């Protein structure tokens, strides 16, 4: 559905994209993950045809994003990061206007608007001005405006930034429903829990490069990362700790705690606790560190995803 090859883009002296490549299949929920300034928005801008790449190619549904801009625009929907709505107009008027840009027939458009307003739980507020909406409600209309022409692919650029939990959950429900109906979704975020929850595959982008790509499981197993059990003791001398470390082949002594790496935390945890008891070590705290996108990202780049 989407094929990106060696896409590069430079702004003045800054290289925003350094030859990224990835493929997104039809009906896939693809997460583009990376910190601010990694190149996510530039990628979406190029794929949405409003910015031209300096190098490389990108096709959507077989159409070249540089040459067949109109054809590409007709099959994609974009949810921008900012709330791009007219505050003075009502929700209905906003949706009617944006729908009309895609030449959706008037009667069909009205039906579609009502359908989307119902889906996002805002039908009762359809005739209220956007200026009177809460941030979360605006975000919902912001998404609805990208779905009016029934696109085959929808790009969502950080669609849940700064919204209330109720709106966030509603958006998640809608996205899950749309995905189930076969819509291809490209989702950029720096909230890894969102990516973990929804994405079939994830591309991790940093400093203009895709540094890892695959399913969550593939990403987990691709690296050398292991889950770990971090234990703090209230007592214990060097001999006791040395005995514990020799029992556990793969461990690391930190200043106030010991890190025990594990292939299977669930199975290893009872063994570790028994051994500590046997050695007379009193445990004050146990933290289980599972592999997630945050830790994968940290492992790959050495920095936090939200940096």
């Amino acid at each position, binding site marked *: 559905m989407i094929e990106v090859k060696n896409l590069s883009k430079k702004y003045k002296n800054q290289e925003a994209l350094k030859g990224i490549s990835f493929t997104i299949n039809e009906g896939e929920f693809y997460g583009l993950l990376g910190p601010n300034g990694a190149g996510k928005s530039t990628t979406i801008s190029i794929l949405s045809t409003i910015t031209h790449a300096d190098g490389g190619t990108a096709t959507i549904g077989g159409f070249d994003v540089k040459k067949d801009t109109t054809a590409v625009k007709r099959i994609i929907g974009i949810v921008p990061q900012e*709330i791009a709505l007219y505050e003075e107009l009502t929700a209905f008027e906003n949706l009617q206007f944006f729908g009309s840009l895609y030449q959706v027939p008037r009667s069909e458009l009205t039906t579609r608007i009502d359908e989307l307003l119902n889906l996002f739980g805002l039908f009762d507020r359809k005739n209220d001005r956007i200026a009177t909406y809460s941030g979360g409600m605006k975000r919902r209309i912001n998404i609805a405006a990208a779905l009016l022409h029934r696109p085959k692919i929808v790009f969502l650029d950080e669609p849940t930034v700064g919204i209330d939990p109720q709106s966030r959950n509603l958006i998640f429900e809608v996205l899950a429903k749309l995905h189930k109906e076969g819509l291809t979704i490209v989702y950029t975020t720096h909230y890894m829990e969102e990516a973990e929850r929804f994405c079939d595959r994830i591309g991790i982008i940093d400093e203009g490069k895709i540094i890892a790509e695959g399913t969550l499981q593939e990403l987990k197993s691709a690296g050398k990362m292991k889950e770990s059990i971090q234990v703090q003791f209230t007592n214990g001398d060097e001999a006791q700790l040395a005995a514990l470390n020799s029992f556990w082949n793969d461990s690391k002594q930190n200043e106030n705690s010991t890190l025990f790496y594990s292939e299977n935390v669930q199975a290893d945890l009872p063994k570790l606790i028994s051994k500590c008891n046997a050695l007379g070590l009193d445990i004050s705290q146990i933290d289980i560190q599972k592999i997630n996108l945050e830790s994968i990202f940290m492992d790959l780049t050495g920095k936090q995803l939200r940096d």
Partner: protein
Amino acid sequence: MIKIALKDLRIFFKDKRLVLLTFTIPIALISLFAFAFGGMWTNDDDEKITLLISDLDHSEASKKTISLLDSLKGIELIPSKLKEAQAAIRKGNESFVLVINQGFSEAMNSGTKLPLELQYDQANDMEVAILQQSLLPTLSTLPFKLIDSSKMMANPPREMANNPNPMHALPPAAIPNDIKMTPLIIPTQDANIGLIQAVAGTSVLMLLFSVVGFGMGLIDERQEGTLKRLYYAPINPINVLYGKMICVNIISLMQMIVMFVFTSVAFGLDIITPLPGLMVTIVATSFTCSAFGLFLASIAQSRQQVQGLSTLIILVMSALGGSMIPIFIMPALMQKAAVISLNYWSIQSFFDVFWRNLSVTNPTFLLHIGILLLMGLVLNVIAIIFFKKNYTTLA
């Protein structure tokens, strides 16, 4: 508090264009008004009143009179054929012609009233008054300057001969303390020149200010992200500008119509008789003012820049073009500079319609409208070029 002030100052000085505008606007306006009003009362060559003169007497006396008037410091005399002079006045290119009618020499010799006539455009009442003040002292003493005094004394009129003070006995007609005044342009309607000046000048000025607001809408759309959303849709980005153009033109048109209808209802300005010409002028003015608003929006990078630029350009254009100060009281140099102002051409067109009673097919009217439309066209083209440069790449 100090930190906040310093932060705001830093933000202010970072915007070089805003800084420039902040200081250039007052300087430009002070210069403009000082030049305009300061120049009114000085007698530099630049501020001479142009007076066409048409000699129908072709006598020695008339030639001497022309020579005498030509030596006046505040007047630039241009000999002209009467018909050509009248045509120039009707077109609005000149304000008046002094006609030395046949019989001037005889009247001079006989001491009867001199057949002098000032044909003028009543639209320039104040300029006519200033001219009269310049001419009267010279014309009042014409007989004494031109008549051979020895002849007069050898054969004086009876009143002079019997009067102990012969000069007091000179027939009143011999001293032309009044010139026959003939307004060349006679409005068919009961027009009020002041009202026409007020409504024409103010409407253009206000329209310019209001179109700036619409121009700012473009900048708001860019800043708020809705412009980007429009570009996501399958439309050519330039259509966004064209859409704005249509909208601004419609609202400008409505504003102008409302202003003239109000003037008609409230002040009795007849807008029905000259309706075709009025509508053409309103359309042309709306078109050009709208283009100006979009031009500003396309070249500016922020709301502050639009506000600064618009204040500067609108006030200067309006002052130069006659919206704020009647053009004829300005120095000659500024009168020449007025042609760069769209206000000037719009106001001239309104005068063509309401005062000069020119039809829509009249070449003078068409010229004024043509220049106005050309200005609009140029501004629109510049707006398109800058829009493509500044707005079509957003990411």
